[in-house]
């Protein structure tokens, strides 16, 4: 108990202070001040989805530009800003926060807890993410981007157009191109500082999730009785914890090079540009697994439920996930096979990369084993989970072809790579996240989505995704380098490029179907019954949508797939048999879930997490304009907001005094560690 933020210790009346905790949990301020992990998860989800749309529009603009040779739909600066921000947005502002939405929403429900370990820190990580991503994206309104020093832009312009003034050094920001001499203007300052801010948010979450998983599990939930999704969250949290400091250091170095005249990466002054690559990919490769493991976790929840069988080889899937996370730190230089690293290093990193295929294969085969012998129901979440398995196999196999170093010399920096990682990140991560969104839609809303629209969404997205990213493999091997704003007719790539562009619009159509389904079903979908999927795990044992306190009574866990075993026995063949009291169990659970025996103590809302996030945004703007008084003023405002919040955070009362203040016995029922 000592590790939880102490809302549950009570009994003494807090001294009244000038800092009051917000009283209401309703309306706009209810959301701004909330410390409820479910509300925070929902805010993460919607914010991430907005950025999915923004990143998607960027992708469509890229594909329009590349549909025909020597196109002039976008200028060079605009194209470069689009591909930089498409990747930056999709990775840092969509997939990671969407995964965080699931972590936040589900973790306490799956663990049998009432919230995460540090509710206010949870809120602060959301607000820092929100304001950081607004800051990063605002570069399209405020940043400037000029030619390299000594070069000139078309028409003698000083800066590129508004759209062309977004960050344009690539999401990988290779030095020295990202240094001030080659990337003039403030665009890359927005990029480096924005990523820094968003990274802080993830780091805070990582610590919070690790502590939550280690300390807030319900009685009886040993580590090897945790749902696979929780395990994958656990691995991801450690990956974040160890990899984010590396990119933080690298981003500080590049920020110092740009803003304060250091020379870490400036070869002309004796710095080392390859050092940036090592630091970036030492973060960047674990990052790949940060993006994919949450989706693997979701799929590992969906497949057993819709196959009506336990996950095949639970322990193997868990350890394979941990192994992928571990090996992920030892393969970074496979992004640098063309950089002239020594042959010994090339061989070593090539072999290390191959080994990752082994745990990945174990996962795939276990998912197949889960479905084998089952009773497979093709609901929308299941379709997306199956799509994940199928597409991820393709991405995995093309990944193995990259580890063959001499082949990689041809493949690297071409569309072959673009095709590969979209199979992993779109076919993998995005399909997994959509599987999760559909699977948990009834929990989130208490209503059911339209299966018809869901299936239309799946098939459009599945076809669109293969049309878009499949031909990219051919394009790459047939001579289409990445990140080029135009290609030329002699490259002979017209057919596949037009197919790819059509495919991108099919994906866009599928997303539109999803949005319609979501909005309409959320309002008018049929009410879901308790336990709509006949699910297996703890989080479905509570009423839908979950009450604010999650658990009226903290459950005791006896086995993996606890919920299933309360509903089903096994006959002599090992076949599942519905228990005679099946119905009564469900009725009792729902009744119990809605009617807590005593008042339940929950973390109070607070103003300060949002204020910290806002302050950090001011600080970030201030650093960019530090050469003027305006910048200093922004830094001062930000610093006051942050430091003031820290003070308020420390001294605000644990809760406002209220009527039921002396229910000491609650300490027992609410204390579940």
């Amino acid at each position, binding site marked *: 108990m000592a590790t939880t933020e102490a809302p549950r210790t009570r009994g003494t009346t807090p001294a009244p202070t000038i800092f009051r905790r917000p009283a209401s949990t309703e309306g706009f301020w209810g959301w701004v001040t909330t410390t409820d992990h479910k509300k925070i998860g929902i805010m993460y989800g919607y914010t991430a989805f907005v950025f999915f749309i923004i990143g998607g529009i960027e992708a469509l603009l890229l594909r329009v530009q590349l549909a025909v040779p020597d196109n002039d739909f976008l200028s060079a600066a605009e194209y470069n800003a689009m591909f930089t921000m498409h990747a930056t947005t999709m990775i840092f502002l969509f997939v990671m926060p969407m995964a965080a939405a699931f972590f936040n929403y589900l973790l306490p429900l799956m663990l049998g807890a009432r919230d995460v370990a540090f509710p206010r820190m949870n809120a602060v990580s959301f607000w820092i993410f929100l304001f950081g991503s607004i800051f990063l994206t605002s570069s399209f309104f405020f940043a400037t981007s000029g030619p390299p020093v*000594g070069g000139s832009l078309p028409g003698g312009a000083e800066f590129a157009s508004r759209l062309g003034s977004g960050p344009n050094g690539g999401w990988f920001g290779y030095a020295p191109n990202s240094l001030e001499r080659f990337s003039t203007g403030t665009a890359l300052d927005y990029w480096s500082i924005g990523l820094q801010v968003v990274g802080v948010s993830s780091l805070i979450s990582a610590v919070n999730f690790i502590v939550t998983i280690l300390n807030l599990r319900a009685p009886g939930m040993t580590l090897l009785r945790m749902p696979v999704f929780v395990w994958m969250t656990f691995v991801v949290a450690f990956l974040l914890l160890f990899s984010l400091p590396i990119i933080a250091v690298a981003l500080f170095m590049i920020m110092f090079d740009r803003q304060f005249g250091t020379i870490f990466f400036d070869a002309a002054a004796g710095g080392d540009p390859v050092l940036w690559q090592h630091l970036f990919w030492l973060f960047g490769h674990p990052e790949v697994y940060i993006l994919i493991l949450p989706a693997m976790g979701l799929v590992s929840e969906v497949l057993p439920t819709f196959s009506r069988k336990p996950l095949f080889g639970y322990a193997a899937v868990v350890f394979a996930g941990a192994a992928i996370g571990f090996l992920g730190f030892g393969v970074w230089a496979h992004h640098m096979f063309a950089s002239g690293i020594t042959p010994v290093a090339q061989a070593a990193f*090539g072999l290390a990369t191959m080994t990752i295929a*082994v745990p990945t294969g174990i996962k795939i085969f276990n998912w197949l084993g889960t479905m084998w012998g089952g*009773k497979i129901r093709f609901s929308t979440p299941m379709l997306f989970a199956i799509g994940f398995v199928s597409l991820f196999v*393709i991405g995995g196999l093309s990944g*193995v072809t990259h580890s063959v170093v*001499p082949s990689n010399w*041809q493949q690297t920096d071409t569309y072959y790579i673009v095709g590969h990682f979209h199979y992993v990140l779109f076919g993998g991560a995005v399909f997994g996240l959509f599987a999760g969104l559909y699977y948990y839609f009834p929990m989130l809303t208490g209503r059911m989505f339209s299966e018809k629209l869901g299936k239309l969404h799946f098939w459009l997205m599945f076809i669109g995704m293969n049309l878009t990213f499949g031909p990219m493999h051919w394009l790459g091997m047939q001579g289409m380098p990445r990140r080029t704003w135009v290609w030329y007719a002699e490259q002979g790539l017209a057919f596949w490029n037009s197919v790819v562009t059509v495919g991108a619009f099919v994906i866009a159509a599928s997303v539109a179907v999803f949005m319609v389904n979501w909005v309409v079903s959320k309002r008018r979908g049929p009410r879901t019954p308790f336990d709509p999927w006949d699910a297996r795990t703890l989080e479905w044992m509570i009423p839908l949508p979950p009450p604010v306190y999650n658990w009226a009574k903290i459950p005791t866990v006896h086995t993996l797939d606890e919920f299933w075993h309360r509903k089903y026995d096994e006959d002599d*063949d090992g*076949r599942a048999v519905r228990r005679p009291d099946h119905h009564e169990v469900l009725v009792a659970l729902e009744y119990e879930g809605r009617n807590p025996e005593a008042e339940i103590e929950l973390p109070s809302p607070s103003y300060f997490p949002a204020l910290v996030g806002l302050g950090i945004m001011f600080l970030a703007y201030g650093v960019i304009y530090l050469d003027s008084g305006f910048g200093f003023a922004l830094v001062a405002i930000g610093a006051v907001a942050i430091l003031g919040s820290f003070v308020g955070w420390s001294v605000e009362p644990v809760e406002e005094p209220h009527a039921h203040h002396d229910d000491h016995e609650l300490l027992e029922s609410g204390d579940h560690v």
Partner: protein
Amino acid sequence: VNRRTRARLLPLLGLAFVLSSCAQVGVRDGVLDSFDARGPIAEDLAGLFWLVFWIATAVFVLVQGGLLYTLFRFREKRDDPAEPKQFEGSPVLEVIWTVIPVVILAAIAVPTVERVFKYTECAPDAMHVNVIGHQWWFEYYYPDHDIWTANELVIPAGREVCLTMTSGDVIHNYWAPKLNGKRYLIPGEDTLLLLESFPLAEGVASEEFHVHCAEFCGLSHARMRARVIAVTDAGFADWVVGQQTDAVEPSTDLEVEGLALFGEKGCSACHVIRGVNDDVVDNTVVIGPELTHFASRGSFAGSTLELSDPDALRMWLADPPTWKPGSFMPNLGLTADEIDALDAYLRSLR
């Protein structure tokens, strides 16, 4: 279109798409097609790719086939009350599907490692060329012949050429896909890349290969291309002699005017023409390509424009940043007459 016609139309359209796609897969007319290997190294790399590709294809067919079979066989059937057996795993299977991939990967690892070491060292008898990357063009220096040139790398066909590469500004990446894979050009560092073309067929004087910068290097990365021209040994000897001579004297009035403009308009501050301004500048300090034998090259502006196009050079001279945003060659505000004169003079520099 009624329902039945539409039902027949859809598969037909699908079939048409699949057929045209298949036809496209075999097409090898792209100038940067890495499958169309034109030298022993690229051929070896492509061979390795196809080996791994077919192994991966076999795995793909097995796994996806297994998936489809599982989905079909174990789909939920109407009115089937039986629940599935709740088996939780099989240690034997876990071991099997751990070991089989390990064996396959080990088989792939052997030729991989062997080639890594094979192609990262130059043969003792290789010809050496230094390559310097610039935003956005490649510069070459032939140390054995003291020749500076740009964009087009002339090499003797069938001989190993060893490129020692570096960059004058940001990181670039030299990719001649028909001859070898990629290698970065990094400021402050030297990297090595081997190129070798097949010997030319009887009666063929030269073969041209396209090159593209493959590392994002700023605004005009897409306009950073180059060529490799493989010629016969005799052709190479002739080329060396030609390059080592000074620039020809202008012969027409227009060319004479062009030469004068080369000095007046500031061109000579950034470009060397031997016999004209090499007494005041040399290639280690200037920032534009050497122009002494400009017209001996077929392409210019990072090999993105063809000299055979009568208007391309005029278009370039009129406003370089429009073609290459960020260009270090500014819009010089030349009049149409001045552009004609420079065009004539530059085209005379054979």
